């Protein structure tokens, strides 16, 4: 019975894009007319999968349920089931119970034995074939490839799997399947089909099941089997040989001959691979196979010679004839592959120099664990991410001081107000906070920016403090960073005092602060409310901080152009806005509406228009 033909269509359970692309690449090089996959099933991630068939990109639907997939694609006869072990049973039962699917490959390792046996019995009842579990699947040369079996396209071409040969192969190990394909291609005319039944103790379809099936396929001229220590599978092959059910030459080897030298029981890589008693040892199985007529080498190392010999004999008898070779179609190279091999290059779309999460997270090259171990705080992290500098303690402390001072200015300022209105309109945190942040602009929250730029410009152009003041007056603009609604020389702002004292004590450069204080001496003579205000101070102090950190005037100017002056304000205010958003929600405040009496309605008369 042939399970797969050149037009066999499969449904893939699980979004295994790489394995699926491998199947389609196999289809393409084998000159299949259409892809072997029709759709996918994924209960958690329905949608579409994009895959190539040659250089053509195709869209494959991903359904939520198996029944839906089968209903939409009634011609699919195969299911490749990539469900994890704990879902393998149910998904396979659901598939067995449908009409169309005849063959199911279960890839998962670790399906409980009781579940597998039940699946096997159900499949038998319904006349269906299960390959697996715990297998990579198999390849039907030139016709169909199950999942990752057969490996890379390169391997498929090297092992001539794009066209059928004369050898029917069955192995227990999925990992050895490619090796055997390679061996058969090098020592015979290639495999007709190769199935790995899986490493479990009770594989759903057994070595003998597949050998008997291959016995019936006329194109298969001889058989190769690779068994394994543990279990009694191979004795069923012995029985079949004795009963004459297997007539084609069978070259076989059972691995695990080394187990006899192990002092205690060692569990090999496969669940089924352990010899419970003498009958299950590799030596005894090899012996029994040999006695019943199989061709058994002395060691795995001699297996290729036996395959070659068998093939030559069948050729000389005219049973194996020359295969008509063709050139497989070439798969266009993947961009990633070419990049990996260094054959092509391209410019990256983005440059990033400040953070790397590919290994341990690092900021400007400093690992996060180091930052934490050395007990650095948020100011230090800001230094690394904004300036790419390891800030001295005073600098990070200053930044934190600014954040603390600017975190919130109460509910009445425009940004906080808008945040509250948005929160009360039922918007989420991000929306409320950004509505506050988006309010920041020329008239609100731009004091640092405006004043910093003004002082920078004034000093660059050599203006004396008096000239600075005069210039603003002449241009009819408010002198940036000066004047306060409430505070005055008599009612001082404590925030200003703290910041100025900190700066004088710690900064090596205070040129901008000094310049502004000189200006203040003049302005406060005009009015005691015309003081150097908090916005102006933070603008001037940012400039002094940068100078203290060793930036040249040119560099400071560039940083200002990049937006450094507003940065702290945005960061700090975000903290306050989050507070306002959370509070409005906590208080269960309802939608805000401006009361009528807060709006002056003054509409023109229609006839005046």
């Amino acid at each position: 019975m042939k399970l797969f033909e050149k037009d066999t269509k499969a449904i893939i359970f699980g979004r295994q894009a790489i394995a699926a692309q491998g199947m389609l690449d196999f289809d393409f090089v084998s000159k299949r007319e259409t892809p072997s996959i029709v759709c996918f099933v994924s209960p958690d991630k329905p949608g579409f999968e994009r895959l190539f068939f040659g250089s053509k990109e195709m869209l494959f639907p991903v359904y939520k349920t198996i029944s839906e997939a089968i209903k939409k694609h009634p011609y699919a006869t195969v299911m490749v089931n990539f469900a994890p072990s704990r879902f393998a049973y149910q998904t396979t039962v659901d598939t067995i119970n449908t009409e169309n699917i005849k063959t199911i490959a279960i890839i998962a390792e670790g399906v409980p034995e009781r579940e597998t046996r039940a699946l096997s019995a159900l499949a038998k009842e319904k006349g269906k074939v299960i390959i697996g579990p715990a297998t990579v699947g198999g390849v039907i040369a030139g016709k169909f490839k199950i999942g990752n079996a057969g490996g890379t396209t390169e391997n498929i071409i090297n092992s001539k799997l794009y066209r059928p040969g004369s050898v029917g192969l069955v192995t227990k190990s999925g990992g050895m399947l490619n090796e055997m394909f390679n061996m058969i291609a090098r020592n015979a005319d290639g495999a007709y089909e190769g199935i790995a039944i899986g490493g479990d103790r009770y594989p759903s379809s057994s070595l003998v099941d597949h050998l008997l099936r291959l016995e019936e396929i006329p194109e298969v001229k001889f058989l190769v089997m690779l068994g394994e220590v543990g279990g009694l599978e191979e004795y069923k092959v012995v029985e079949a040989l004795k009963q004459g059910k297997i007539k084609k030459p069978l070259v076989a080897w059972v691995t695990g001959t080394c187990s006899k030298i192990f002092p205690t029981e060692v569990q090999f890589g496969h669940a089924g691979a352990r010899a419970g008693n003498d009958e299950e040892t590799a030596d005894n199985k090899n012996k029994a196979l040999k006695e019943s007529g199989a061709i058994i080498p002395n060691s795995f190392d001699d297996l290729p010679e036996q395959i070659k010999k068998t093939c030559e004999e069948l050729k000389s008898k005219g049973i194996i004839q020359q295969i008509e070779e063709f050139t497989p179609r070439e798969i266009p190279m993947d961009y990633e592959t070419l990049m990996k091999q260094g054959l092509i290059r391209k410019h990256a779309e983005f440059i990033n120099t400040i953070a790397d999460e590919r290994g341990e997270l690092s900021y400007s090259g400093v690992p996060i664990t180091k930052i934490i171990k050395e007990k650095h705080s948020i100011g230090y992290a800001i230094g690394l991410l904004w300036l790419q500098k390891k800030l001295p303690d005073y600098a990070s402390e200053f930044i934190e001081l600014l954040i603390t001072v600017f975190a919130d200015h109460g509910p009445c300022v425009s940004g906080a107000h808008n945040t509250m209105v948005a929160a009360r309109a039922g918007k989420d945190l991000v929306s409320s906070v950004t509505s506050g942040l988006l309010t920041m602009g020329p008239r609100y929250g731009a004091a640092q920016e405006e004043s910093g730029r003004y002082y920078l410009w004034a000093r660059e152009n050599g203006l004396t403090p008096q000239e600075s003041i005069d210039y603003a007056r002449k241009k009819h603009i408010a002198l940036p960073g000066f004047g306060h609604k409430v505070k005055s020389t008599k009612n001082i702002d404590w925030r200003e005092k703290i910041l100025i004292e900190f700066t004088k004590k710690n900064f090596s450069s205070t040129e901008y602060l000094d310049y502004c204080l000189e200006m203040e001496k003049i302005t406060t003579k005009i009015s005691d409310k015309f003081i150097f205000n908090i916005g102006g101070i933070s603008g001037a102090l940012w400039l002094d901080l940068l100078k203290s950190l060793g930036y040249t005037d040119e560099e400071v100017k560039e940083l200002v152009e990049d937006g450094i002056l507003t940065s702290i304000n945005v960061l700090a205010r975000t903290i306050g806005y989050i507070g306002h958003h959370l509070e409005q929600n906590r208080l269960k405040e309802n939608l805000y509406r401006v009361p009528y009496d807060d709006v002056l309605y003054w509409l023109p008369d229609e006839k005046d228009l």
Partner: protein
Amino acid sequence: MAQKGIREYLAKKLLAKYIANNPSYSFTYNGKVALVRPDKSIDEIALENPWIKEKKLVVKPDMLFGKRGKHGLVLLDASFEEAKIWINERMGKEFEIGKAKGILTDLLIEPFTPHEKEYYIAIKTEEDGDRIYFSEEGGIEIEENWEKVKEYFVPVLKGIESINFQGINETIKKFIETLYKFFVEYDFTYLEINPFAIVDREVLPLDFVARLDDTALYKDSEKWGDTEFPTPFGRNFTKEEAFIRELDEKTGASLKLTILNSDGRVWLMVAGGGASVIYADTVVDLGYGNELANYGEYSGAPSEEETYLYAKTILDLMTRKKDPRGKVLIIGGGIANFTDVAKTFKGIIRALREYKDKLKENNIKIFVRRGGPNYQQGLAMMKKLGEEIGVQIEVHGPELHMTRVVKMALGGEK
């Protein structure tokens, strides 16, 4: 990985739990059983299990080996004080059981109940169903009396109700049925009670051997409770084996190491479960079994760091003691389906570079054979490394038969 033996203690506790949840009118089981370990003395256990001081006791090792009576390791009909002395004399001592030597660390205690008739029961899984063996003449002579054992077969998808237990007394019949349901619901793969007795409707499982299917953990963890799968008696792990086991448990990949002979000259580091067995086979088949140092396997796409640690462990082991004839390391593998060969080699190369001086001192030759995704790049890296560190590294791809490097490394058949 599939079938795992559990302690007699746990098997009995699970049975008691099952029967408590599924009581029968025909029989009871008290589940009186306790485990003494180096960190939990009989005195401590007696506080939780008052019957220990009240009843006559049975004491025996509970470490997954049988024929304990024949090894003189079963104490019967003992008082608390007698049991205590007996345990103290044996706890922490080395014993040789068959081929295995190991330290006695786990002893089971249960009440001693005089009884007359001994029965035998075993249940095992087969491909198409479960087979039940029952005999009215159980005990140590079961094998001699095997012709009296009755067999019953429960096909997959059928229940125990399909079995006709004609000629078996009602209580025992009910017990077998319960035991079978227990076997199924708790995902056992093997269970043998030889013998068991029934005294005044109380079931006495006198000797209990059981294996669970550990892949069922995802659905049975609540039923199984705090399940432990002990390693076979005498299978004491070396520090390095324990380290690799730990590494293996932490990753989705597979990393295995068994030291066979630390003085051996032939060391294996093979990718893939199937291939690793074949490499070890070939060393044995060529007549070098006594020189094979280890069985080792890495597969399932381990990370670069994992292969580095794995390779380092093997290199460390093989460079501890010099051999005048030198040593060989075989870095083998088949043609991978999807593991990136270059990537896994990176970790190995890092370890080899670190050990370059020791490799030279120990006159170690390295033979590499591998195929699969990116194998050309991986092999080229290995080749370059050999030139760089001045160690002989022979490198082959799929054009060479997988195990031929073993022959090359060993210089032919013995």
